[in-house]
């Protein structure tokens, strides 16, 4: 079984970046996570995760234009790389495979 070098929170962040497509930067990612999952997280945690993912090669970033909403400071937009995409796929595939193998008996037993 291959191991993907990625943590649970990182996976969420990576997914959100993929969802936001062209508009993924610190604040938007944080808000999207809040909206989608209801998790309250600090902006610094998001930054840290984004940086980690970038250094692992799953994300790449570029600096955008200045906007008034942040006092003239520029945004750093993130986009998912091919490697990131593949990792997400691999994770999903692995999960699905595992899910599929759960015998019905077991499911009944735990009451599902």
């Amino acid at each position: 079984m291959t191991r993907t070098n990625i943590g649970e929170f990182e996976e969420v962040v990576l997914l959100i970046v993929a969802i936001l497509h062209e508009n993924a930067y610190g604040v938007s990612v944080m808000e999207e996570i809040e909206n989608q999952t209801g998790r309250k997280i600090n902006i610094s945690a998001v930054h840290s995760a984004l940086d980690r993912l970038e250094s692992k090669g799953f994300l790449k970033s570029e600096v955008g234009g200045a906007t008034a909403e942040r006092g003239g400071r520029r945004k750093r937009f993130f986009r998912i790389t091919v490697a990131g995409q593949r990792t997400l796929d691999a994770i999903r595939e692995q999960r699905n495979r595992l899910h599929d193998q759960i015998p019905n008996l077991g499911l009944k037993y735990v009451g599902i």
Partner: protein
Amino acid sequence: MSVFKQEPPQWALRLLRFYCKPRALEIIEGDAYELFYKRAATEGLKAARRKFSWDVFRFFRFRYIKGLEDFNSLNNIAMFKNYLKISIRSLLKQKFYSFINISGLALGLAACLLIVLYISHELSYDKYHKDIDRVYRVANGQSGNWTPARLGAQMKADFPEVEEVARINGPFSQTFKVGDKIFKEERGFSADSTFHKIFTMEFVEGRAEGALNKPNTIVLTQSLANKFFDYGQALGQIIYIDGEATMVTGVVADPPKNTHFYYNYVLSYPHDFWVTVGNWTGNAFFTYAKLTEQATPEQVHAKIPDFVREHVGPALIKYSGHATYDDFLAAGGKKSFTFIPMKDLHLHYPHLALGSSGSIDNVYIFSAVALFILLIACINFMNLSTARSAMRSKEVGMRKVLGSLRGQLVGQFMTESVLVCLLSSVLALLIASLGLDGFNQLANRDFEHAQLFEVATLAKLFALMIVVGLMAGSYPALVLSSFQPIKALKGEAQARGKGGVLLRKGLVAFQFAISIFLMVSTVVVFSQLQFLKKQDLGFDAEQVLVVKNVSRLGEKAQVMTQRLEQVPTVQSVSLSSQYPSEWISDWGYQTLEDNPRSYSFINMFATAGFLETMNIELLKGRNFNRQLVSDTSNILINEAAARWLGWEDPIGKKLSRGNGEDYTIIGVMKDFNFNSLKRGISPFVLRLMTDDGHAEGGWYAGNYLALKVSGNFQETVSSVEDIWKETIADEPFEYVFLDDSFNALYEEEERFGQLFTASSGLAIAIACLGLFALAAFTLQRRFKEIAVRKVLGASVKSLTLMVIRNFTFLVFIGAVIAIPTAYLVMKGWLADFAYQMNLNNPLIWLLPALFVAVIAWLTVGFQSVKTAMSNPVKALRSE
């Protein structure tokens, strides 16, 4: 108002900008701002500001904190890293020299570190007292210890400048009975109830106020209380001190060790006449005074003459026999009191300090020794660095060609020397902690290992390291960096090395000078000690056993004496008020002439057997007769007293204590040393004590029993102890042999000698390390020259001698500098002694120089023989 006009907390923003990596700052700041504006619009400004600060705190992560590479001086850091790398490489390349450099410096630094520890300890004395700057010791006259009973109280009443006074007495050693346990405790003092207002005390049990108000109360230190009551409550307990019931009214934390009088317990004074009133001519108290904040001691000193005239004058003239106080002054009489700052007591007035044995001279001597040793180690460092310069000249030339500035080269060599210092400091800490016990003995202090690793000590070591690194490193750095690149690359850099060689030789000679100086001092100190111990004391101190605490026996003393006389190994017994080698008080006597002269004679009471016990020779007249009661008004004097009196035949003449109290001289004793031989023999008066220990006027003075013993000491001591135990059960038996007691007087000198031994040993060791490396280096450079000489027919002997001759010359120069200096310094040291050894013995001077020379020969000779014996082909075949 638009949300964009609102601002987050500025301090948080500043903090963020301070710590955050510039690379990440804009993005982080942008996101934080965006969130701030959004929250300000929805949650209100206050919450937004609070959350902004919180975000800033949360961004404080390793990932976002500035690193070294984020500072502007990026280049310098890189260069610095390179310096460090090159330094380490060059140290590793020449392991032998590096080892000698580092270990020599480490030895020097370790010695320095210990001495710095000592000096800062000495300077810290009494600093823990609050208001130390306002507390003074009142000295009788210029620096007399004891002052009258009423002095303090009267000063407080008369002088508005004096805020508080306290008197103390001590130190005592007394016997404590707690329950049925018996303890003998030392360092006790009695004190006024104002004690705590002058000296800072921290009460653990009881209250400072009123703790010493009533007679028979005592304040214990924590450790003593724990010992007595086994960690139970001490307050309110009754204990028996020398048989007297005393109540514990307080327990204080142990005073720090660095105080000029360390107390284990403080007793209150009895409400007796001698304490509450006393008289102005009797001096029995140490007086301390605290001045108000505005007052200076000068203001008080100005008022003292009138104070003395008013209060002391009347009592004084009654005693001195003058009509008025003015007559007393006109006759040359002096009476005054001096305020001496308490912070100076430990170092500057050790005789006033109550047993802390400090000495400013010691501080100076230790500092000088530290400086010497450090200097020798630094010289090693400089010599080896410059000597190796030839090897590094190509490196320097290359660097210069590639554009290195001189400042950068200096920086590189400095880095190297600081690195060496850093390594030696670590080693120094190790050496210092190994040598701590020995050092404690030398300095008579008890430093603990933990003190070496305190932050304050480490900071001092660090400062020392930087200073040494820069000091020792600056010369090589300047020399090496001054090479001209072309010459350096061609290998001609040593062309200007002539001055360098001379300097190197000068420094080595200086090292020898210091070593020889220390050696000579060691020899002189020890010879003087030997000289003192061999001196004829004028009496027989050997085989005299002195039993202490005899005053506790009281009336039983006589019985004990009689029983002791029955012991076969005890030849004679005598009871005395004091004993030789101990401090003996002086009493004033006047002659009964037309122009009476008065003098303070050393005065001692003893029973008739004293002369026999001590084996003191009687020159004229007769000894006391124990059968004659009238002999208590007769006295024996020594030769010095006879000389002072100047009479042709003193026998039968009289000396007076005033008020018709006259004593007839019945004999003259041969001079004997009753004190340290540092002092000469002063005029001495011996008075008779009756066999039951009472002196003239019924006053009990039998404090000591002196026993002349023979045969086996151990057996005699134990039989004496048995008799003591049978006579008085609950008093510990204490004794001393008189010759040991005399030798103990030279403890300070003994330590002084040890200090010189240790430091001269260290100095020679470090100097030899340096010499060894230097010789190895020189021989390596002259390898070819020696080979050529050998090929041309020089013998091993002549080659070895050639090398040794160079170094011998340096030792000679060193001796020429060291011996006259040592002569002057040691003459100054000897000036303190009444009995001085003969300094004109050439052996004292030549032996140390010869010793150092021999060590130098051994150091150099071994290597030169090895070089001279080696096969010349090896040196010559290359090129």
